[in-house]
């Protein structure tokens, strides 16, 4: 069982990297939000992996907090996106680079 420890961490690193690149490369704000979710999940995987293999509970507790933070972030973010859409602008982050109002 202990042999899978590096596997979990490498997978977590890979998922986090893919999410980070998604945030940088994609221009659709919805996909950017999904990439952020990907990164938060990768962090959760690392937290739970460490909690399991160090026999502590802190990782699981903080993974629970991360899930709560991610949920509230999605709510606010999607409300922002609908607001931008309703103001008649295209959903393209390159064109929304000035958050002026």
């Amino acid at each position, binding site marked *: 069982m202990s042999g899978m420890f590096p596997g979990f961490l490498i997978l977590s690193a890979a998922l986090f*990297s893919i999410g980070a690149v998604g945030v940088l*490369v994609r221009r659709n704000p919805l996909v950017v939000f999904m990439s952020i979710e990907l990164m938060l999940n990768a962090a959760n995987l690392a937290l739970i992996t460490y909690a*399991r293999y160090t026999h502590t509970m802190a990782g699981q507790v903080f993974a629970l907090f991360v899930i709560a933070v991610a949920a509230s972030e999605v709510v606010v973010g999607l409300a922002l996106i*609908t607001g931008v*859409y309703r103001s008649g602008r295209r959903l393209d982050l390159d064109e929304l680079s000035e958050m002026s109002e």
Partner: protein
Amino acid sequence: MTVIFGIAAGLAFLGALGVVLSQRTLYSALSLVVNMVSLAVLFLLLDAQFLAAVQIIVYAGAVMVLFVFIIALLSPGAEERVRPLELRMLLGGVAAVVFTLVIGRLTLNGITVGPRGRLHGGLGPFAPTLVNAHGQVQTLGEQLFTTYLLPFEVTSLLLLVAAVGAVYLSKRRRVGQ
């Protein structure tokens, strides 16, 4: 065990790639669902049954339904001009590989876990067999309401602020304001 890990890890990886590489937003969302469910399986492998359930309920249930709902509402069609072989995608791929290697190297560097592990402070009191004997949810709940009481209460405040913020942001404003 290892076979399940391989399947779940592969699905999680492919799902993550699908989120970033899909041309259509809805396909990204569905790939994210695959990724979340595979991660829940991995959580089960890590003896975190409660978090696996929370992962399915909160992410695959609530968050993804919200995403799909917004996608259906806004229908942001094929607005992306990014092609998989475009320069920024290639640069992004290279950056992802480098970043993975750097993080993997840093996290694995000098950390060995096991009977002769070198983790600072040694192993904690929550061995998986003990936790499962006492009850996973009971142990997590006790920790949450004793050691981590303050962060727990702050989280409730955060959820309240998020709810108020969402209501404020989605409120229809009159023209000219």
